[in-house]
């Protein structure tokens, strides 16, 4: 039996021509940029996009208006994609390349208690910021994961009259600007205890984390097959037993994923922590008392110092923070794919 043919597939020659014309367009625009006062890769991009589109238009000129529109659209859409993805890659690339300078083993085991931001890069580190971030994220998860999962359970299991309202509130809450959450916690917890604290920061993060956890856990709970629930009821189980013994264990990995995604969402929040946990140069392990450092606020305050070494420290902390967020994301992926394979 022969494999089915796909006549609409591009042939090898046409692919080669595509490639050739793109190279030609970019090359010609490079020459144009070199021969005029314009400079920089962005100028090449600016000229080559219309040029490549034009070349493709000319190529398809004899094939009718539909083919011409198709050729231009393909060039425009592909270049728009490239234009969009360049800054993301640039962000990641810059953080990696500039973040290497200040990293040494002590960077993870020392804090800035006796080190000025402008001191040599062999001194000081981000231990205090890492510990602060871990403490606050842990407390924030303890608050927001149960609440988020409960609202997911309400929507998928109880299905009461308030389902629409709960969904709507979750959506609305996901749009609360992070600084507003910070102001709110300042207006309540910080003013009440008359002190910045890790717990205040954690509550602000929890507010931002609840909607993510609620939405993802709802999505996950929706996947539980109705038959499983019916089977439970048929055995005479109560609803609470059904939920705790059947529904939630079925999607355990999905719920872990939702928590991890929530953590990834808030681990990099800066603005709310500025007005709740503030910044402290030494390691503070007590979330109930006194300001406490965190990775994002460390980056922020090092940047504000403006000194060359301080900025290097900021980039290195950014590399650590980005690494943390990426690891969280990767593990969320891994956990959910492991859960699916079962």
């Amino acid at each position, binding site marked *: 039996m022969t494999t089915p043919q796909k006549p609409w597939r591009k042939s090898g020659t046409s692919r080669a021509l595509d490639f050739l014309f793109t190279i030609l367009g970019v090359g010609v625009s490079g020459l144009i940029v070199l021969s005029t006062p314009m400079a920089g890769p962005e100028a090449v991009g600016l000229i080559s996009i219309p040029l490549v589109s034009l070349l493709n238009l000319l190529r398809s000129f004899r094939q009718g208006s539909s083919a011409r529109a198709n050729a231009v659209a393909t060039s425009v859409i592909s270049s728009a994609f490239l234009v969009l*993805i360049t800054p993301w890659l640039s962000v990641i690339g810059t953080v990696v390349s500039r973040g290497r300078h200040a990293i040494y083993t002590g960077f993870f085991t020392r804090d800035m208690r006796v080190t000025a931001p402008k001191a040599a890069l062999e001194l000081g580190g981000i231990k205090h910021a890492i510990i602060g971030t871990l403490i606050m994220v842990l407390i924030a998860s303890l608050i927001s994961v149960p609440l988020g999962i409960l609202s997911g359970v309400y929507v998928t299991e109880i299905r009461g009259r308030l389902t629409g309202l709960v969904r709507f509130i979750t959506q609305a809450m996901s749009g609360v600007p992070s600084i507003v959450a910070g102001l709110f916690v300042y207006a309540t917890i910080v003013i009440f205890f008359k002190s910045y604290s890790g717990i205040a920061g954690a509550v602000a993060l929890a507010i931002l984390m609840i909607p993510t956890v609620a939405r993802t856990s709802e999505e996950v709970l929706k996947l539980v097959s109705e038959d499983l629930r019916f089977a439970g009821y048929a055995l005479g189980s109560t609803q609470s037993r059904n939920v705790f013994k059947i529904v939630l264990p079925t999607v355990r990995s999905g719920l872990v994923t939702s928590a991890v995604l929530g953590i990834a969402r808030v681990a990099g929040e800066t603005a709310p922590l500025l007005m709740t946990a503030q910044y402290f140069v030494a390691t503070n392990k007590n979330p109930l008392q006194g300001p406490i450092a965190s990775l994002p606020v460390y*980056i922020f305050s090092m940047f504000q110092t403006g000194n060359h070494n301080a900025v290097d420290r900021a980039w290195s902390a950014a590399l650590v923070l980005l690494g943390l967020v990426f690891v969280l994301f990767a593990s969320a992926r891994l956990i959910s794919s492991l859960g699916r394979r079962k």
Partner: protein
Amino acid sequence: MTVSETNTDRRELKFRKPGIDRFFHFVVTAGALASLLVLGLIAAFLVFRGFQIFKDMGFSFITGSTWEGSGNPGEPTTYGIAPMLVGSIVLSLVAVAIAVPLSVAAALFIEFYADQRIKKFLISILDLAAAIPSVIFGLWGFFLLAPRASHWAMSLNHYFGWFPLFHVPGPFFDGSPFIGGMVLAVMISPIVTSVSREVFSQTPPDQISAAHALGGRKWSAIRYVALPFGRSGVVGGAMLGLGRALGETVAIYLVVNIVFKTNINILFSGGGNIASMIALKFGEASPYEVKGLMAAGFVLFIFTLLVNMAATYIVNLSKRNKA
């Protein structure tokens, strides 16, 4: 016994939920409504702390354009957030104007042009880009983008300065709303792209096949099937991006030269939004000024809430049409 004699009345169900279930319902409902409580508390506390300002300043808190004084007796104190309110809108509109066309095109590329194997990889890149913390975008914007972008702004002004939007009152291009808007555009484009892509991915495949069967090429299928199908989803995604851009603090704080003055010449240095102003003034604010910042936070809260509600409504509308 004949059929007619059977009692056709429905038997009354006598079922009472077991106590444990009633307790369970209570706990779950309470947990689900906690978010509602939090939202209510946020509004209530910001109004409570900022009430004195609303009372003292009246409506000019929204329309006024000076922010002076610390509320000490004898010191003239006026708070009006108009410049920053306008700044928030200008910055987010610049961001949306740049991000939305590119994001929609990128979503089309990922969904319809990219190879199946690359597609998965691209979607994970999209998710990762959405998770990059804003302070990192701020650093990147300040050190990498801003020097280039102020150069681009100069060229734009040089060639298109006759267009009112690109006019500048003086040759200062650093820290402009244009640059801030670009950083915001980079920040919101992953979410706009991923919402649009999700909508496009739900395009009925038979309609696309129908377009191909009628002799249409890829672009015809996109133009006449996918785009009309996804229109409202794209609008909703754009508004979600708008909502996110309105509330962004740190990136704007780091990139834009925050000046408390209404600036709608987007290429000209100086601007800011409500969120970045709050962060800027918070550190050294007197107790009275903190109340002013609370009031400003309340205005921002209501504003973003309205935008997000509208976005949610539009996205849901598109979902309902498809069902």
